């Protein structure tokens, strides 16, 4: 894994650095407050792994803006994926729904990269089993295009036009030790869209 990462980093070009990511999240937080007219009933749900860290960071920023506690949770979509049968089973991640539940709330799903849209479709299915939100919105750090389903994000950190031969890799301090978004050339047949 380390070798692979190093190899990827060597020919990958950063498109967002730490300060850019912080600014982008601040902007998205303000947009959420603006669109939700105060964010009274907002619940942030991050999609593991990196979506969860982004949701936690967004939650902190929203609390600074609104001076209220913002519930933050995580939503693991592994069991709802449409490509489960195409790979060996994946290890599961944690689904953590904040105490008051989702019924009647404005749920903002948070993920790092929006690509085919299949992850978000799975997340919508998973939400169905967890409650009935008033509305569901989507915030992503990077939208790289190439949608395969009629899904779009409500809040986009950066629109990044890419070719299918490129990879977009988000690294966050909590998981990878530093904040950056890398654009690189695709090496293997799979594993680019995460």
């Amino acid at each position, binding site marked *: 894994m380390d070798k692979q990462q190093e190899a990827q980093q060597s020919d990958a070009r950063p498109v967002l650095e730490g300060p850019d990511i912080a600014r982008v999240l601040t902007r998205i937080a303000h947009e959420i407050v603006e669109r939700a007219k105060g964010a009274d009933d907002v619940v942030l749900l991050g999609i593991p792994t990196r979506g969860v860290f982004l949701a936690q960071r967004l939650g902190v920023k929203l609390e600074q803006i609104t001076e209220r506690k913002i519930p933050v949770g995580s939503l693991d979509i592994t069991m709802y994926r449409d490509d489960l049968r195409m790979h060996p*089973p*994946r*290890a599961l991640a944690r689904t953590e729904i904040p105490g008051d539940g989702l019924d009647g709330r404005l749920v903002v799903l948070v993920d790092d990269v929006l690509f085919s849209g299949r992850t978000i479709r799975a997340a919508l*299915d998973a939400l169905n*089993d*967890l409650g009935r939100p008033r509305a569901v919105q989507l915030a992503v750090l990077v939208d790289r295009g190439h949608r395969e389903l009629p899904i779009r994000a409500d809040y986009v950190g950066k629109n990044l036009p890419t070719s299918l031969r490129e990879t977009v890799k988000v690294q966050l301090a909590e998981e990878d030790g530093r904040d950056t978004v890398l654009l690189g050339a695709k090496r293997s047949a799979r594993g680019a869209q*995460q």
Partner: protein
Amino acid sequence: MQRHLISAADLTRDDAVLILDTAEEMARVADRPIKKLPTLRGRTVVNLFFEDSTRTRISFEAAEKRLSADVINFSAKGSSVSKGESLKDTAQTLEAMGVDAVVIRHGASGAPYRLANSGWIDAAVINAGDGTHQHPTQALLDAFTMRRRLVGRDAGIGQDLAGKRITIVGDILHGRVARSNVDLLHTLGAEVTLVAPPTLLPIGVETWPCEVSYDLDSTLPKSDAVMMLRVQRERMNAAFFPTEREYSRRYGLDGDRMAKMPEHAIVMHPGPMVRGMEITAEVADSERCTAIEQVANGVSTRMAVLYLLLGGNEPAVAHPSPTTTLATRRSAPASEFRTEEK
């Protein structure tokens, strides 16, 4: 673990920890308003029970239904088996119906192995107890219960049971639960002590990776978990001890004996309990007895096993190639499953 789960001894440490971690996430499904996942939609699982069982069958059925599998229950009583059909013919009938997995309980040791390796059937085979041989999902749910209670729910993720002292008391001779538990607990790094009258210990027990004692009272203070096993009267065809009363006095767990255990230690029982024989009502109903918890954990653990064997296009855990020996297999890394890209 290959495509099948036949014996707890086939699991590597990494396989077992992966199953326990997955079970921990599955357990959270039980707290949801809709206790169902779509993961095994369109897959058919047969519960093939040649021997009576209530909790194991219901537990598997609950696990299969929570994962949205189609469930067919087949019990030998009142079926074609009572008319004289062989295991082979039953298997081929199920194969013709297109089942994806067979959960089998059989009175003969080795029946699930035969089913898995005979070429009669293409489905994954999960052993739900065979004779006096193995009951791997019971061992997994016991290990899951121990890890939750002795290490912690969240603290336990990714951990094994290294250094935990587990005492198993009772009918080891007829007990597949004891054998499976010794195998799995040893793999997970726990120290196991078996306590039973000499007549209820199997031949060759000295080769098992565990200690053996005839004295319960001296073992209790050194135990983190004490697992009481039922004396299997239905399998007894000789006099293994003079009277039940004597057995109960020497090897039964009552309130006084429980007081000798360390504060944090738990009492486990796979069920069904015979109150007054191996366990008193006082102990069975106490806070420290995990018998009911084990039932709930059984559903989560079986969901994890079903997901890891059937959820993808191939099983999640290590596939030993036919040329590797058991020794190299045990040391090989198990994680062939895809993790979220790191």
